[in-house]
Structures are given as C-alpha cells and as structure tokens.
C-alpha cells in the first residue's frame, strides 16, 4: 500500500518535471521568435534616432536625396492612403453588409468568400502588374495617385471586408429578429440596430487597413509612386513620392547616403505603422471592456 503510493508520487514527480521542461521549451520558442525582432527594432531606434527631428519630417530631401528631410514622401503616403480609403472603405463595408446581412448560404456566397481570400493571397507584385495593365495603361490614368490608390484599395479590400463582417456578426441575431418583428425593413434594422453597435469594430478594421496600405511598396512602384519628384502632388492625377518606396530608394538606389538617413526613414515608417496598429489594438481592448448586452 505504502509502496504503491510512493511509486505513484514518483511517477507524478517525473511527469511534473517533464511538464516544466516542455513548457520551458515553448517559452524559449516564443521568445526566440519575438526577441530578435525587438533587438532589430532597438537597432533601428539607436541608429536612426539621431536624425529624427521636426525638420526631418517637414523639409524636402536635398543634394541628390543624401541630405534633408522626407516631407514629400510623407505627404505622398498620406495622399495614397486617403484616396485608397475613399475607394475601399465604402466598397468593403457594402460587401461586408451583404455577406453578413443578406447573403444566403449558397455556392455564390462561397464564391465571393473564395474571391476575398484570393484577393488577400495574391502576391503584391501581381496586384502591381494588374494596376499597371488596368489602370495605368488600359484606363489611361497613367502613373498617378489614382492608379496607385486604386491598386492599393483592391489589394487591401479584404482587410475592410473581413473586419467589418466580424464586427457586424458580433451583434446578436436576436436584436435583428426583434427589429424585424416590429416591421422594420432589413435596411432600417441595419441602420438603427446593427451598424450603431458595430461601428467601433469597423473603425478598428479601418485603422488596421491604413497601416497595411501605408507600408505597401510593390503595388505602387509602377502605378503612381516615383523615386524622386521635385513637386508636391496637387491632385489625384499627379505622381508622388511615398514613404515605403523612399526607404527602398535611399537604401538601395542612391549612392553616398549617410548611414543614419535610411534608418531614420525606416524608423518613421515603422513608427507610423506600429502606432496605427497599437491604436487599433487599444481601441479593441477598450471595446471589450464596455458591455452593451
């Protein structure tokens, strides 16, 4: 009797040791994935921090892009993102409303879902080819903010659709039924009950899309963004510089750039993107804490 208990405890101890070991292994894997990135980010800050200043953000590049600031690229990225959002947000929200509120469960809906998955999965350079073939050449928009933003909008459309659909579906079905019972049309139900309770979730998705759009490089390379432009864009038919492409250019295409300049550009770009994502995450957490039903 005693012996048996002893054996059981021993087995238990052995199991516990293995358990600890396995857990340690997983912690190690997780840290090995995350630590290098933190080190890399720290390196960016150390090497690029010295060049950061208000002037850096708000002056033009000078002396063959080896000196000066990044203002035209920063402004160009804002143009590209803004125009892309104007196109993709209404379209994406409409698509999400259709999929969440109207679409029957049939082959056609599955086809739409498949299209969305593939839109997100097609390589960015293929989107670039499409943008060039369709908007620049076929529709004759030329290399312009319009062509580039259309390409970006189509590429990031799945981000808006998926996050909006999730936000809509988080609103319980019983609310819709209660509203339909009163004689509200589908649209009245969506406008009065579903959308007001999904709007913060939709906003979270849009912030995420801003971050995705701002970082893309390949889709704008041949459709609207240029290495260098002496002029600031005046409208959507102009070409523009952009942050992401500017990083590529100063780190690979221009000779004689001082080391801290590309680091500074990378730091600003990554700062923009991570800030957007952090806002989106914080927003989401704040929402989760607020109970409405």
């Amino acid at each position, binding site marked *: 009797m005693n012996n048996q208990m002893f054996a059981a405890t021993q087995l238990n101890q052995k199991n516990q040791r293995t358990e600890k070991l396995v857990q340690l292994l997983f912690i190690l894997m997780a840290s090995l994935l995350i630590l290098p990135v933190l080190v*890399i980010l720290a390196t960016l800050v150390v090497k690029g921090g010295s060049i950061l200043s208000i002037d850096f953000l708000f002056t033009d590049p000078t002396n063959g892009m080896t000196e000066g600031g990044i203002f035209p690229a920063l402004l160009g990225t804002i143009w590209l993102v803004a125009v892309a959002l104007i196109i993709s947000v209404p379209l994406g929200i409409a698509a999400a409303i259709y999929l969440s509120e109207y679409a029957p469960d049939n082959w056609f809906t599955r086809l739409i879902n498949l299209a969305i998955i593939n839109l997100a999965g097609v*390589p960015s*350079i293929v989107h670039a080819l499409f943008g060039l073939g369709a908007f620049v050449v076929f529709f004759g928009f030329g290399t312009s903010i319009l062509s580039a933003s259309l390409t970006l909008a189509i590429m990031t459309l799945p981000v808006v659709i998926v996050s909006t659909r999730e936000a809509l579906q988080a609103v319980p079905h019983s609310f819709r039924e209660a509203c339909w019972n009163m004689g509200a049309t589908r649209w009245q139900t969506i406008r009065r009950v579903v959308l007001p309770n999904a709007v913060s979730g939709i906003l979270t998705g849009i912030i995420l899309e801003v971050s995705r759009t701002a970082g893309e490089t390949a889709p704008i*390379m041949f459709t609207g963004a240029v290495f260098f432009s002496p002029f600031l864009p005046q409208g959507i038919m102009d070409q523009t510089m952009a942050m992401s492409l500017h990083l590529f250019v100063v780190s690979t295409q221009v000779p004689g750039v001082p080391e801290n300049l*590309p680091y500074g550009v990378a730091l600003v770009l990554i700062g923009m993107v991570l800030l957007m994502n952090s806002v989106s995450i914080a927003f989401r957490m704040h929402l989760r804490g607020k109970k409405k039903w």
Partner: protein
Amino acid sequence: MLAPSNLSSGCDQAFDQRNLDWYIDKAVQVVVFMGGISAIIFIVGIFLFITKEGMGFLIDTLDLQEFFGSPYWEPSDEDAPEYGILALMAGTASVTGLAMLIAIPFSLGTAIYIAEFATGKTREWLKILVELLAAIPSVVWGFIGLTIMNPLIIELFDVPVGLTVLNAGIILGLMAAPIMTSIAEDALKAVPDRYREAAEAMGATRWQVVFKTVLPAAKNGLLGAILLGVGRGFGETMAVLMATGHAVNIPGSVFDSVRALTATIAAELGETAVGSDHYQVLFTIGIFLFLITFLINLTADLIVRGIRKS
C-alpha cells in the same frame, strides 16, 4: 390610437401598397450586392488583365520547355534573349523552403504556448506582440536584411556576401511566422474543451493532452496555417528583392545569392517598354504566380473549412 379597423373584413387596401422605405430597402440590397460581387469582379479582373498583357507572348513567342526548363534569364539581351525561369523558381523555392523550416517550428511552438500554456497577462501581451510583428511592412524587413543581417552573416560565417538564401530565408521566416502563429492559434482554440477535459480526466498531464489530443484534433487547421505561410513566402516581393543578392543562380548552399520570381518582376518592370517582349514575359511570370498562389489559397481554405464542418 388604432389603425382603422373598419376595412378588416373582405379586403385590406394596404396589402398592395409599397412605401418609400420598401424601395429604399430594395435599393440598399442592390448596392450592397454590388459590393459583394466586386470581390469576384476584381479577382477575375486581375486574372484577365495580367493574361491580356502576357498571353500574346505566351502563345506566339514563348517556348514553355525553355521557360520552365532553362536556368538562363537574359530577357534584355537584344540579339538572343533568354527566357528561362528555372533559376528564378529555384531562388523562390530555396528562400521559401528555408523560411518555412524556420517559421513552422517557431510559429507552431508559439501558437501552442499561447493557446495551451500561457495565461492572463502573458497571453495577452504575447498575442499583441505577434500582431504587431505581423504589421511590419515588407520593405522594412528588406531593409533589415540589407543593413543588419548582411554584415552579421558576413561576420558570423566568414563569407564574402551576406545577401543570400540564408539572409532572405531568415527574414521571410520572421515575416511569415506571426501570421502562421495566429492562424494556428485559432485552429488550436477551435478544438473543443471537452477533448482536453476527457484526456485530463484519464490522468494525462498538460503536455500529454496537447500532444496526444489537441494537436491531432487541430491538424487540419495547422496544415492550413502552414500552407498560408507558404503562400505568403512565395508571393513576398520587397524583402526578397532586397535580401537575396539578386543574382540569377541555382543555389548550391544557403550562402549563395539567388533571385526570386517576384523580385524579378519588381526589379525589371520599370525598365521595360509597355508591350515589349520583356514586358510581356514579366506578365507571364505574373500569371504563373497568380495560378500558384490561387491553388495554395484554395487548398488551405478547403482544408481549414474541412475542420469547421466536422
């Protein structure tokens, strides 16, 4: 307060009348439906346009055997241009393969840790970190390969060039891992708790539960995560453009420079005249990339949906 009820017997006039709200509702239905089919229109449009630009060349000039079988890629040679993408495919395959060797164990390990072991704040923070990692733009990753990894590899391994399969593979692995982690975590979370409870009730320890019950139950979802990672690595452009060294070459080791299919398009499209042979062959590569990623995504979707149904 009542609607008039004197018309209740026999016929009710209201039954035949549609009001403004009814028409607004119909109009909205049409508008959102257009939004829904726009996704289909775009994906078909993408295929049609890249085919339109690349098809003529594919039919008239291109020798498919040379295209897929030759390692010589010299499309800008004026006298005897060569259009072999074998070396480019080898470049893409080697970089993606190495990236997966790195990303699969780490992303699955992290996903298992997040889903099965981590609790409370640790778990929250890990998830946030993974999400932030996924947000870093690919051009920044390329820049990291170029400026941080490059000298590091030269120094550590005492090799002349640091822009190699190794460099791009590590970068791509780090890029793909966060996405694979979150999809894998979803797959693990989808395993019902009763599986875990049943195994625990039989006296299994935590890791036994994970290895013998949870992982087998989630294997389709995990496979889906891996496939999406492959698709992502395959289609990545800026990072491989900047970190591979951009040399047309069938690699003999991880210390060789290579060139990827995507990077080739990105690097050369700007120099070609619209409609030229070179321009068209780049679109032909685009068709190839489109079809491959389409297949990968379709398969991943079917596999992942398979688990949701059962």
